[in-house]
């Protein structure tokens, strides 16, 4: 394992402290229990949005705390759900009287810990669960689909509504709509190495890819020989389109997300391939996002998310945002 690391026990604390210093104009980092919150207190009467999850997906979620997006984020250990006391402390810190909306990715550990945090928090709160990964089937026989990159879009769009005075119920409703309108699928070329493990999570050949990989390096649909970008992108889009079935006149946001180890040069190439394929199918791409937003440590690979947009979603996507990892309009 080659990583910038001093000792494993301090890995997360040191990284969080550095994050706090680097973005001291936007956020504060609280340790023990760990949570990232906005530097300026949430204005009275604004619904507070709190997300969180295992670390290793940076900039998600701490990088999305700030104006127009989250009020707080609770980082767990690498790839491990955060603990209920973190959610409780973060909620107590940021709630300005309008209630708290927890945004949770659909993983058993996250669901349980957020539920316990919500039970321990005495203020008004509700939660939404994201499950945009079309790689795994949503059936009564599974925990359901995984929550992955579209969580970024949910946080941005609901963050804007909360900033514009939306109520807890309205924020939840919009979040659920965005989640329902989004589909994601990823592919990995290499594994990632959890610092505590010291070795790669899975073995993969030089000429292989994991199709439908999860954001922790969990196996996906199948292991295949690597192919040309256009073929890979075409297969990913086919799975997403099968699921989302966008109408020809519908507007869409196309989000190409890097897993951490793939350069932007390749991500833009993926974006170009995806645009061409979608255009050939008569599907409109109106908005774009390309970059490393929901990563899996140093994994090489990318995910593609398509979000069907109505006017409400478009308005809240375009509105100003100022966080460590996403900034426009202000």
């Amino acid at each position, binding site marked *: 394992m080659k990583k910038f690391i001093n000792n494993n026990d301090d890995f997360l604390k040191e990284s969080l402290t550095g994050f706090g210093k680097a973005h001291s104009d936007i956020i504060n980092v609280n340790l023990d229990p760990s949570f990232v919150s906005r530097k300026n207190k949430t204005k009275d009467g604004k619904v507070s949005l709190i997300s969180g999850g295992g670390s290793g997906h940076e900039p998600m979620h701490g990088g999305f705390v700030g104006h127009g997006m989250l009020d707080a984020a609770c980082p767990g250990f690498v790839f491990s*759900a955060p603990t209920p006391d973190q959610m409780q402390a973060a909620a107590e810190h940021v709630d300005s009287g309008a209630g708290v909306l927890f945004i949770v990715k659909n993983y058993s550990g996250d669901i349980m810990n957020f539920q316990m945090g919500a039970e321990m928090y005495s203020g008004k709160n509700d939660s939404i669960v994201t499950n945009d990964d079309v790689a795994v089937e949503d059936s009564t026989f599974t925990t359901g689909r995984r929550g992955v990159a579209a969580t970024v879009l949910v946080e941005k769009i609901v963050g804007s509504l909360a900033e514009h005075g939306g109520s807890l119920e309205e924020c939840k409703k919009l979040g659920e709509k965005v989640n329902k309108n989004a589909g994601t699928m990823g592919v990995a070329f290499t594994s990632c190495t959890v610092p505590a493990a010291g070795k790669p999570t899975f073995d993969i050949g030089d000429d292989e890819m994991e199709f439908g990989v999860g954001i922790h390096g969990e196996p996906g649909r199948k292991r295949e020989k690597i192919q040309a970008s256009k073929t890979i992108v075409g297969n990913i889009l086919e799975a997403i389109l099968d699921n989302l079935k966008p109408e020809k006149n519908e507007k869409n946001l196309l989000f190409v997300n890097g897993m951490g180890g793939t350069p932007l040069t390749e991500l833009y190439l993926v974006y170009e391939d995806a645009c061409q394929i979608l255009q050939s199918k008569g599907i409109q791409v109106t908005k774009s996002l390309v970059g490393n937003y929901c990563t899996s440590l140093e994994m090489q690979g990318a995910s593609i998310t398509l979000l069907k947009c109505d006017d409400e979603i478009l308005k809240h996507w375009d509105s100003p945002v100022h966080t460590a990892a996403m900034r426009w309009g202000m």
Partner: protein
Amino acid sequence: MSVSFLISQAKSVQKVIDENSAEIEVLDQKIGDGDHIFNIQRGLKLVVELEDSIKDLPLAKALNMIAMKVLSGIGGSSGALFGTFFMTMAKSPDLDKDVDFNKACEMIISGIKAMKERGKADVGEKTMMDVLIPVSEKLNELKNESEFKSGLNEVIKIAEERMLSTKDMLATKGRASFLGERAKGHIDPGARSSQLIIDTICKSVINN
């Protein structure tokens, strides 16, 4: 059950889990995401380190401190589930009186029931509950028996059988559930760690 019993069991379990950590890590990497063993090891270390702060406390308070430590120090599914287990045990009535075998069984049974509700998982879903629920049922049969030591041998056997039975299951809960058929052929890491914990504690009770 006493505070000193809890501390000595935590130490024995820590030793056994450490000895088997490589196996559990590999199981989790096959069908999960590799964090289970680190969470369990971190939790056991934190509980063992509590010794000085809890050794003179009443049982209910000690259990509560263990629950809070587990809940805030582990993370992941294991933290929530084992935190729920200890929190529920701490809420048992009459903990200021002597806790005999019968009472200890009742506490463990209620703890496992709370874990089942928290995780919304039942037998047959390829999780630690595949081991814990049958063990809880067996303890329910045993709790009123004065000669319980031979019964504990059956508990050990049930835990092992049920742990092995997860190998051919299709996961429907937890992170392995996303894999469908590909999770088959691997023992669930949570079932294995739970079985090791039960095995260690039962053997220690039988031998004392």
